[in-house]
């Protein structure tokens, strides 16, 4: 009997293939949207977490200004507060036991030129401690010498993208490139990091000594950011508290004044980013839910049409001895099968969309089994909920009236 019920439902759906397809379209779109969005959302938040983990969870970021995710470098709202100096970074490293190393950092967009090759990239001023703090080694050539850092020598270390774009297969070490108006000698190349969050290319950067950056590019003695690495055995909370105490002291902030700088760890940045992703995913999922609701109503509508069309058939079935429950089950199974069909097609479509988009955005494709199963069960539920009313109508038909129906 159960086999017959499913066979019958499949037959009824196949008989009106086009109609069935159009009916399930709402479910297909709704489920595909949910699957694609959740999968992409998961992928991008995996990506952000992964990137930050690559940076290291024991890295703290200190910036002037008030807390918030502004764009980095000059022009950020950090500028409203007094900027840091190289001495601040030195103090954080030498005065605090909870901090193993601290590196000043400042960045600005720049045009890098080699012969006739011209590319847009970022120039960042820092010093040798940066490589250790963010765990980003120089794989070709060497880092900065102390002397180069102290006098502000015109030397630079290339990110992999810059190396590739300017030099191709040639050895860049010892060559000279121009960064805007600054001519500098290439002394090293950084390890390749790969694509960053949201398509940002982290390898598109040229590092120069902080003092060179200040003298030759910024024209001031400002440091817009300090990266600090935690010493072993200390928690991020301890590190953050120590930095806050020290910087309040150095910046002469009195008891009743707010901080004019802020320190964060990567976990905070990660949660902030995934919070944004989460809100977006939530909003778009609400749109998808509306689509599922509309899809469900479409199924109810077509099932009502089907019950009316097949009134005589229902009459025959009742006459030969089908119980109301059996007739109800037949139409309920048909509705559930329709919406499950939409659900399965939607899951497939959503995964394909997510995979293609993830590939294009260079983020991981992160299909989530529980979301897929959830979407499957939810589309079954849509079938039961919206199929119930038409099925009940079929089951309650008067056999005499139904048999008379033309």
């Amino acid at each position, binding site marked *: 009997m159960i*086999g017959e019920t499913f066979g019958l439902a499949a037959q009824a759906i196949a*008989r009106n293939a086009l109609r069935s397809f159009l009916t399930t379209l709402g479910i297909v779109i709704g489920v595909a949207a949910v699957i694609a969005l959740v999968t992409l959302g998961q992928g991008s938040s995996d990506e952000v977490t992964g990137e930050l983990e690559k940076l290291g969870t024991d890295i703290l970021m200190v910036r002037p200004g008030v807390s918030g995710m502004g764009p980095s470098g000059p022009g950020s709202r950090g500028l409203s507060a007094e900027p840091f100096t190289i001495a601040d970074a030195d103090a954080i490293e030498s005065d605090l036991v909870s901090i193993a190393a601290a590196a000043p950092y400042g960045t600005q967009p720049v045009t890098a030129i080699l012969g006739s090759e011209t590319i847009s990239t970022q120039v960042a001023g820092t010093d040798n401690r940066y490589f250790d703090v963010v765990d980003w080694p120089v794989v070709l050539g060497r880092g900065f010498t102390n002397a180069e850092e102290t006098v502000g020598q015109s030397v630079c270390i290339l990110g992999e993208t810059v190396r590739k774009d300017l030099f191709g297969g040639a050895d860049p070490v010892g060559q000279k490139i121009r960064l805007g108006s600054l001519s500098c000698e290439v002394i090293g190349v950084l390890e390749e990091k790969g694509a960053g969050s949201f398509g940002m290319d982290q390898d598109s950067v040229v590092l120069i000594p902080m003092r060179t950056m200040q003298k030759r590019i910024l024209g001031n003695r400002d440091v817009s950011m300090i990266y600090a690495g935690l010493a072993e055995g200390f928690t991020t909370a301890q590190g953050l508290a120590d930095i806050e105490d020290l910087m309040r002291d150095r910046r002469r902030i009195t008891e009743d004044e707010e901080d004019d700088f802020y320190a964060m760890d990567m976990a905070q940045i990660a949660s902030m980013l995934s919070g944004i992703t989460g809100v977006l995913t939530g909003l778009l999922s609400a749109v998808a839910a509306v689509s599922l609701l509309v899809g469900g109503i479409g199924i109810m509508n077509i099932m009502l049409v089907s019950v009316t069309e097949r009134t005589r058939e229902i009459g025959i*079935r009742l*006459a*030969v*001895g*089908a*119980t109301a429950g059996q007739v109800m089950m037949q139409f309920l199974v048909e509705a559930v099968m329709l919406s499950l069909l939409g659900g399965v097609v939607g899951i497939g479509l959503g995964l394909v969309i997510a995979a293609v988009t993830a590939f294009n955005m260079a983020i991981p494709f992160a299909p989530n089994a529980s979301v897929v199963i959830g979407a499957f069960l939810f589309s079954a539920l849509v079938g039961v909920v919206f199929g119930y009313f038409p099925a009940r109508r079929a089951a309650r038909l008067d*056999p005499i009236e139904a048999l008379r129906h033309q």
Partner: protein
Amino acid sequence: MQNAPPVIEFRDISRIYGTGAAEVRALDGVSFKVSRGEFIAIMGPSGSGKSTAMNVIGCLDTPTSGEYLFDGVNVANLTRDQRALIRRDFIGFVFQGFNLLARTPAIENVELPLIYKGVPRAARRRQAMEALARVGLADWAAHDPSELSGGQQQRVAIARALVGNPEVILADEPTGNLDQTRSNEIMKLLEGLNHDGMTIVMVTHETDMAAYAPRHIMMVDGKVVRDGVPEPGAGVS
């Protein structure tokens, strides 16, 4: 007669539609019995209540008053689903309009009552083939109703009615949509089933079709006006 109760027993049955001035007494105090193995024709002009009587006998409708005993069971006390079970296990229907499922092969049409009975697939197929063979359509099992003539369609319907080996076959104007030759074929088929022991109740307004039945119940205005062996020459509209 044996001690067994009659298959069908109407005790003072009325079926009233509407109320007050709009009241229609489709059946008005009808009583009769049908014993196992009988072949009866219920006759009468349109509006005489013969179709209502058929619906009540077939447990598709319930009387407003009176008692209807099917094999000793009072149908008026049964739920909708219990009446469905009576139809499924004890009654086979043959309709004027054949009422076969469209786009469904003859064999599957015949199998329909067995599906609801829960007969396993293989046994179902075998019983349905036997029923089709009995009405002479074994070679047409795979054909859809649209590929069959009216007479063949009605024979498929008869196969469907008898496949579950019911107590009674109810035939409502079984020859109403057929020409004279096909009508006689169908009546001979029903007559043959009756000779093999099947109880048959047929509603018709055609005297020459009713002539196949040894007993006639004549109805006018919801009442039985005559019940018994037909008088020679007695005609109905």
